[in-house]
């Protein structure tokens, strides 16, 4: 086993409380996370408002990361520092709208510019030379230069330590048609960029570093998993294995009987039968994910029906 270094909560805290950038070890305890541009609009200056004098007035753009929540509906949270008063104001009420735009590897300067807070009334996208365009499902504009824009509505906000956590639900989205047919392997080398760390350059100035994925590794498939992949049950997987000849009818019957008996014994923590059955189900599951079908058959042939 690799030698481990342990950090207590106080040590983790001290790694993070440095002046401009965190200690490298603090970044090693984190996953680089997708970087997006968050577009919001002051609700009092929305489209049609007398103060919406030009495209960017009242619009605010920030660099942010997101946190996945649900796939149906499609939702995620964005985390806003509480001292970012403009964005907190723009997103603080359920029903507020925003756009999450995905910049590419060629837009790092634009993101760095939007990583700063412009004076009230000035839109960061205009400074970054990012072209805004009309969204279809929300009043907040999208960023035309970004390949993908997610149009979102805030369903819930939660103040959590130093941040406002806005739970946003995607109501629509747009994609630059030039990216539509690109395969995943190419897409992930273009966007999203993942925030890795902040480092100091030779002059002591902070530079942000981002990463991109490249290689893709497929997870095991049937017979080492159900044909459906995700979202199925044990019995269906066993049926798949029986129907395709990986296990005999008698093996299938025994596994299903064990599963049924296991459920009956589940709350009987001190039961010797439960302990034995847990070992059998674990062993047989291990043989299945390893594809050791002959070993599985031999094991089941010697095992008792409950």
């Amino acid at each position, binding site marked *: *086993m690799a*030698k481990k270094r*342990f*950090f*207590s*909560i106080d040590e*983790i*805290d001290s790694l993070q409380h440095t002046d401009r950038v965190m200690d490298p070890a603090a970044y*090693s305890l984190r*996953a*680089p996370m997708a970087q997006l541009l968050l577009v919001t609009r002051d609700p009092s200056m929305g489209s049609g408002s007398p103060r919406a004098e030009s495209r*960017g007035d009242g619009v605010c753009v920030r660099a942010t990361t997101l*946190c*996945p*929540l*649900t796939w149906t509906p*499609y*939702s995620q*949270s964005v985390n806003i520092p509480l001292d970012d008063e403009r964005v907190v104001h723009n997103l603080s009420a359920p029903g507020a709208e925003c756009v999450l735009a995905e910049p590419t590897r060629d837009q*790092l*300067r634009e993101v*760095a510019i939007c990583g*700063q*807070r412009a004076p*009230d009334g*000035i839109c960061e996208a205009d400074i*970054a030379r990012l072209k805004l365009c009309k969204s279809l499902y929300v009043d907040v504009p999208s960023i035309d230069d970004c390949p993908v824009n997610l149009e979102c509505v805030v369903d819930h906000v939660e103040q*959590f330590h130093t*941040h406002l956590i806005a*739970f946003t639900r*995607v109501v629509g*989205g747009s*994609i*630059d048609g030039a990216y539509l047919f690109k395969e*995943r392997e190419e897409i992930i080398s273009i966007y*999203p960029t993942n925030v890795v760390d902040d480092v100091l350059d030779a002059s*002591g*100035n902070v530079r942000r*570093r*981002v990463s*991109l*994925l*490249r*290689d*893709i*590794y*497929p*997870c095991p*498939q049937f017979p080492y*998993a159900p044909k459906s992949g*995700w979202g199925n049950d*044990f019995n269906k*997987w066993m049926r798949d294995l029986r129907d395709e000849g990986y296990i005999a009818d008698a093996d299938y019957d025994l596994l299903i009987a064990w599963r049924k008996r*296991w*459920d009956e014994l589940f*709350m009987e*923590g001190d039961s010797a039968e439960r302990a034995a059955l847990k070992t059998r189900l*674990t062993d047989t*599951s291990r043989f299945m*994910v390893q594809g050791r079908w002959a070993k599985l058959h031999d094991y089941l042939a010697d095992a008792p029906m409950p």
Partner: protein
Amino acid sequence: MSRLFYGIDELLTQPTFPGMKDPTLVYYHFRPARPANLLVTRDPDSGDLNLASGTYGPLTDRLYTICLHLHSSPHSARNLSSIGAECVVPLPGKDLVRETWIPALPFPRGIFEADVAELTLLPSKVVSVPGIAECPVNLECRVEFIKQLYGRTFAVFLTIVGASIDEEMLARDRLGVIAQYPTYEVDDATNVWGGSNERLGVNAELLEAPGFPACAKRGFNSDMTAWLADLRSEGYLSDVELATLGGWIRELGAASGERRGELREHITHALRLAAWEEWDHLHAHLGATE
């Protein structure tokens, strides 16, 4: 090519086009890859350990907190349904793709997926559940907040109360670390049975974004007035130019009508020229409109 818009109902049906090999291709263009995690919990009813796999996201840095999203049917959601519940979040490396997938398989409640995957338990220092020794990072966590979402999923906010890391990772450069872990859920390609084949990715490239003078010396989340002060202190702006720009910004707050539009144009143009390091044009702009 023009921009294509999708309503969410259409997007969730996974729209496709003739000639696309995988019907999930368009849909996953809209879902950025997310870091994969393992999750060790203990069943409060039986005491059995559980190992699950999923994805997570960051919440706050200073206190280090993260958010899990747990569907109500896997066992881990039940195991983390109370404030203060303990868990370990191991971050798997690219050599653990198979082991990361095994906990996603539909084993009966109470069968410990780590035993099926032949993973080694790592005793924790702070919480009562173990980590996974083969994972380079193990985050020991307590549940601080739970929010039920749309009836079927729980957002679970975790505070990191301890962490362990392979010492070897502390000696690697950043690219060496991120090329090893964590893995990311990239997409679910369609398999020959019409089901899904989860695919994981790993970081392979490290890029550096522009810093000062394109943005403030302190980097992200700075105020642009701090950036302007940096530009002055390093000689990119003169005292007079900084005063001119500062005067416009102060005036903008109270301006309206045509003057407001004029000030917005002046300020935006000046900040744009500075951010793109077009210094001659910046000096000309500030001089001409002083």
